[in-house]
């Protein structure tokens, strides 16, 4: 596959997903004309690319759909559920066609025939005549509805020959669009002795009377866009080549060309419109026509265009490379800082400090580039909810909150499956059928809310439904049946609910297509844990359930507090650090209930010396206690000394230390030694867990 096609694939995948979203919005607001425009615009772009890169089947399907939406656009047809259904299934089929352009696979062949048939039915029903349905490449013609005379200035760069382009072919292509004349301009040609035969000095003024819309004229230039100056201006709506009163000779002279053109245009002032496609629009001024820098022409709204320009596409492995380089830089910079500290030199210090500042900014910028809003993921669920609600015959409202919350792209990718699974569970088992809901006194439409928000160093994602909730007794019975717990085990609510994450537990009485195969929630938990995240569930019978996923924001680089214990240095993520206190070591040792009073509040603490089996004899007199927090729980962590802030590049400690869960990684310090990064969540969990056991 050549690189153009590959490029189209990427673009088309994005377009298809945009199209899907636009259709879902349209389904909610069928009368919104701007949505119809949006759908139409995306289809049109999709079709254009498909035609150019040889995806004929895609071109064909989008073409028919485009016709339908064109009618909707013109108020000749209403948006119906049938149309949207067909469009959505076409969208699915298009994705398949991207990878099977010729429609060779049996299933695709079947789908293709079916969808075409469905479209045909609609087309026939609305009575698009064969003639209009057959029109190709001329969507705009119907819209603008007339041929027009265009003035095209084609001014190749002098170096255009170097790329093997023959500008004459372009001129020929342009003339082939309709009636036209090309006027070669030789004013740029230098005196003969200075002429360079490898350069192009000629440019052209073309007058073409054609029904081809402006953007398709522009398509002629698609491969040489950046090698020439192009201006396309609509002059008037009548054919000067069939008009005897027009003296074509006057066009031959560049000096009289423009004034004559203006004169002709003024003969038909009513129909005069101005369209202009240009990159460097210096020539447009000469024609006396007001230039609009509208690339998209009449499609899309201004906001949309600004959005298009403000982002560029970058291959994700380039971003990964960037992140790696930044990591290396951070480590190197730490070495420099240390060296400058040890070798006092005013100028070195200034440099080192500046580099530290720049590195930090670079790190943050690079870091933010790998973040994408979680909406990317949530948008997909809209479709899922729509399909499932039809399949299960439940009315479901999906509410999305905090879609702008950003997460690392790798985390988002890894989250897709677990979230999908949870959502399916909510839709299938959580929400009741309409009659059940009504008899329970609830709104007949079930609501599922997905929300995401930041909390300290974490991102929380909640999936909440107002369904029937999880029956603890059922779970308990099932768990006993499966031998997961004993008959007389006493569990609190949280512990019982937590059992849904145990392997092999599915309480669905009926196994449905949507969910309930008995594998799932345990896999979900595993996936989340692999991302160093946590998953919790809460539920109330009759009111609904909520599943919460808590993920660390942290990736490869974190801001940390560097501390020392015995001979080893540790990094505590700065986001969880609340406050640092100093205490006499003796105070802690005599403490029986493992609580210490700080700022008038009692805080449980964990002496890392004790926890890490450090030598008691080396204990310092003063102990530093660092208060960290997590989910409103506060724990003090005791260490020997606090060294200071540190930017830590997280490195895995490897499989060998898999069991040392309280270590989330390691980082290399400026002097080349290694500091261990503490997983405070695990420490808090463990120390609180121990306390319960101890009491």
């Amino acid at each position, binding site marked *: 596959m050549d690189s153009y096609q590959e490029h189209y694939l990427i673009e088309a995948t994005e377009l298809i997903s945009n199209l899907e979203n636009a259709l879902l919005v349209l389904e909610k607001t069928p009368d919104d004309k701007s949505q119809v425009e949006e759908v139409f615009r995306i289809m049109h772009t999709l079709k254009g690319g498909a035609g150019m890169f040889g995806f004929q089947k895609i071109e064909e399907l989008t073409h028919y759909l485009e016709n339908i939406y064109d009618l909707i656009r013109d108020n000749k047809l209403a948006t119906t559920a049938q149309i949207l259904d067909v469009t959505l299934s076409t969208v699915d089929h298009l994705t398949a066609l991207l990878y099977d352009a010729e429609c060779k696979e049996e299933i695709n062949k079947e789908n293709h025939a079916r969808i075409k048939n469905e479209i045909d039915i609609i087309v026939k029903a609305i009575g698009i005549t064969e003639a209009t349905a057959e029109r190709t490449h001329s969507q705009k013609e119907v819209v603008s509805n007339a041929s027009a005379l265009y003035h095209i200035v084609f001014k190749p760069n002098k170096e255009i020959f170097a790329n093997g382009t023959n500008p004459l072919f372009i001129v020929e292509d342009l003339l082939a669009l309709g009636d036209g004349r090309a006027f070669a301009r030789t004013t740029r040609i230098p005196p003969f002795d200075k002429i360079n035969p490898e350069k192009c000095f000629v440019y052209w003024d073309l007058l073409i009377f054609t029904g081809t819309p402006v953007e398709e004229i522009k398509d002629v230039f698609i491969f040489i866009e950046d090698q020439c100056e192009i201006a396309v201006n609509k002059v008037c709506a009548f054919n000067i080549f069939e008009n005897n009163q027009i003296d074509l000779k006057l066009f031959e002279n560049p000096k009289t060309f423009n004034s004559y053109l203006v004169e002709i245009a003024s003969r038909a002032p009513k129909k005069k419109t101005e369209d202009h496609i240009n990159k460097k629009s210096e020539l447009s001024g000469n024609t006396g026509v007001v230039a609009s820098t509208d690339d998209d022409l009449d499609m899309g709204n201004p906001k949309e265009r600004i959005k298009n320009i403000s982002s560029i596409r970058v291959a994700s492995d380039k971003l990964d490379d960037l992140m790696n380089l930044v990591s290396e830089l951070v*480590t190197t910079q730490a070495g420099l800082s240390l060296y400058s500290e040890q070798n006092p030199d005013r100028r070195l210090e200034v440099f080192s400090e500046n580099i530290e500042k720049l590195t930090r900014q670079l790190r943050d910028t690079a870091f933010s580039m790998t973040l994408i809003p979680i909406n990317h993921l949530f948008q997909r669920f809209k479709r899922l909810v729509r399909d499932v609600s039809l399949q299960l015959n439940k009315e479901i409202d999906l509410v999305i909150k905090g879609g702008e919350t950003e997460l690392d792209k790798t985390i988002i990718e890894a989250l897709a499956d677990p979230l999908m699974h949870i959502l399916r569970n909510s839709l299938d088992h959580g929400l009741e059928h309409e009659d059940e809901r009504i008899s329970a006194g609830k709104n007949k439409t079930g609501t599922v809310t997905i929300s995401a928000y930041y909390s300290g160093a974490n991102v929380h994602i909640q999936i909440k439904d107002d369904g029937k909730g999880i029956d603890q007794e059922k779970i308990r019975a099932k768990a006993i049946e499966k031998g997961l717990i004993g008959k007389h085990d006493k569990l609190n609510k949280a512990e019982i609910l937590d059992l849904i994450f145990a392997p092999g537990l599915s309480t669905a009485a009926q196994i449905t297509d949507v969910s309930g195969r008995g594998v799932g929630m345990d896999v979900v938990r595993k996936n989340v844990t692999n991302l160093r995240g946590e998953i919790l569930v809460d539920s109330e019978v009759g009111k609904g359930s909520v599943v919460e996923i808590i993920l660390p924001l942290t990736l490869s680089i974190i801001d940390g507090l560097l501390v020392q214990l015995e001979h080893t240095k540790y990094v505590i993520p700065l986001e969880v650090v609340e406050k640092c206190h100093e205490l006499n070591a003796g105070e802690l040792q005599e403490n029986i209930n493992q609580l210490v009073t700080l700022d008038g509040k009692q805080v449980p603490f964990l002496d890392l010396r004790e926890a890490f089996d450090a030598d008691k004899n080396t204990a310092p007199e003063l102990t530093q206690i660092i208060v960290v927090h997590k989910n409103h729980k506060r724990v003090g962590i005791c260490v020997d000394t606090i060294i200071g802030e540190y930017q830590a590049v997280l490195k895995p400690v490897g499989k060998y230390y898999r069991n*040392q869960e309280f270590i989330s990684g*390691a980082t290399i310090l400026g002097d080349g030694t290694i500091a261990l990064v503490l997983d405070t969540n695990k420490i808090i969990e463990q120390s609180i867990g121990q306390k319960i056991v101890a009491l």
Partner: protein
Amino acid sequence: MNVFEQKEISAAQSFLSFRLGKEIFAVEVSKVNEILEVPKITKIPKSPEYMTGVINLRGTVLPLVDTKIKFGMKPVEFTVDTCIVVLEIKVDDEKIQVGALVDSVLEVMEIDEAQLQPSPSMDAKYNLDFIEGMLELDNKFIMLLKIDMIFSINDIIDLKETHEGSSPKKNKSIKNPNNRGKK
């Protein structure tokens, strides 16, 4: 691929020999990435005794294993001869690097297939799961180690132990969290 099959392909193989206490061992050179002097080691708390800690190997974190403790001997005492042999091993189809602490590194030797005694059958007290073969050189026996097997087991192993308890099939890889190596 089985190591024995490999041997059929190449008649002569290179081995790196090193000393642990009084005994001499060897590993295939192809599994050795490099040999390092001992830098500052960062100990990881609560880890098994034979897991000495981690070091900075040009920006990556390399776990260290005290080979002597791993083989049930006394811990390595750090001298000028103490070295880290950086090995590339395969655990669950994944290549990982591990540093093996040894008392001293001796030499790289070319060994002919013929020289190699495929199994230490004459001395059945060695555990065949970890020993690939024996080699006699200057009246000294050198044990050729199956390092993939040795370093993928998360416990102390006894080379001389032959009873089934230490069979790698039952105790494979780094999966058992309870084996903290407190023997």
